[in-house]
């Protein structure tokens, strides 16, 4: 194995490493970028743009083989997923944030009060709406008053894929 990666993959590794570095740097960046989600999007976008800039700026990359580009893109998609996994744990991890919520409470909490505090003083329904937001955003579901409907087509495809993964992982599906 050559110690040095081909330039397209090498630049992708550099750009992938830039993503977590950007996440940390933006902690002290402009206020409007400090929101956990926005910060993640900006960091990932920066990584991809950096790859594009390096590819244009460095000699011998533009004419690389399509499989070199595919490998570079694979590195960056993998970096995006790994960064999201690491970032989402402290930012959105339910169990971890439940623990912190309980630590910040000045008294014992029952489930309902705990959920209220977790949602920033709102209610357990706020958490539901927050997570439902993903399904609505990806056009998998729509809310119609007090009922949530799955959208045909996209949701069937998503559920089919999900069932395959549940089977591979040997997980019981919620009913």
């Amino acid at each position: 194995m050559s110690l040095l990666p081909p330039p397209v993959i090498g630049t992708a590794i550099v750009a992938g490493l830039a993503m977590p570095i950007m996440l940390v740097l933006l902690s002290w960046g402009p206020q409007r970028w400090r929101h956990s989600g926005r910060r993640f999007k900006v960091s990932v976008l920066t990584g991809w743009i950096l790859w594009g800039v390096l590819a244009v700026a460095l000699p011998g990359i533009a004419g690389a083989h399509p499989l070199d580009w595919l490998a570079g893109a694979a590195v960056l998609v993998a970096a995006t997923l790994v960064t999201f996994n690491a970032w989402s744990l402290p930012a959105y991890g339910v169990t971890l944030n439940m623990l912190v919520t309980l630590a910040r409470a000045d008294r014992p909490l029952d489930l309902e009060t705990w959920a209220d505090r977790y949602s920033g003083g709102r209610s357990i329904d706020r958490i539901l709406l927050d997570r439902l937001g993903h399904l609505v955003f990806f056009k998998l579901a729509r809310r119609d008053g007090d009922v949530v409907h799955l959208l045909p087509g996209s949701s069937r495809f998503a559920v089919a894929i999900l069932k395959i993964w549940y089977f591979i992982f040997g997980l019981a599906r919620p009913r």
Partner: protein
Amino acid sequence: MIDDPRVVALAAACVAFAIYLCLIGVGLRLTRQRYGVSLLIGCAVLVYAATASWAQANVVIAQWHFAAFYGLGVAATVFTYGAALKALSLRMLLVMAAAPDRSAAVTRLSNDVIRASFQDRIALLEERQLIRRESAGYVLTEAGRRAASRISRVQDALNMGLGGLYWD
């Protein structure tokens, strides 16, 4: 016969990924989801080492390309495992998909998914002795206080504040 080492790398990565999926499928069932992420990473390293050494000895392969393609498969698998195991939105999706009219009332999702997930997590925290139940509710144990303090320090260092909600 494939001559291009990059094409060999792509093919080898596909084969290695298929072996990886079979291996984790067996491993996760045998261990009943205990040590899930460690198992996923351990199997990934094992399959990578075995395939890369076999390929090195038998074919001309572009190792960096192989690592990139296979690494993507593993990253996607770990990401999907975490989501399948914990993501509340995916649970809601499956609950609705199992309903005859592919829909659910907000109250049902609130009870069957959100409240149930909170209860599952409370049970997990109790099992790990990070919290304990008292007559007035739940409180942190000493170990729980230390864990919460570590998480808070990470959140403070990253200027996150208390997290938990995506769309706030």
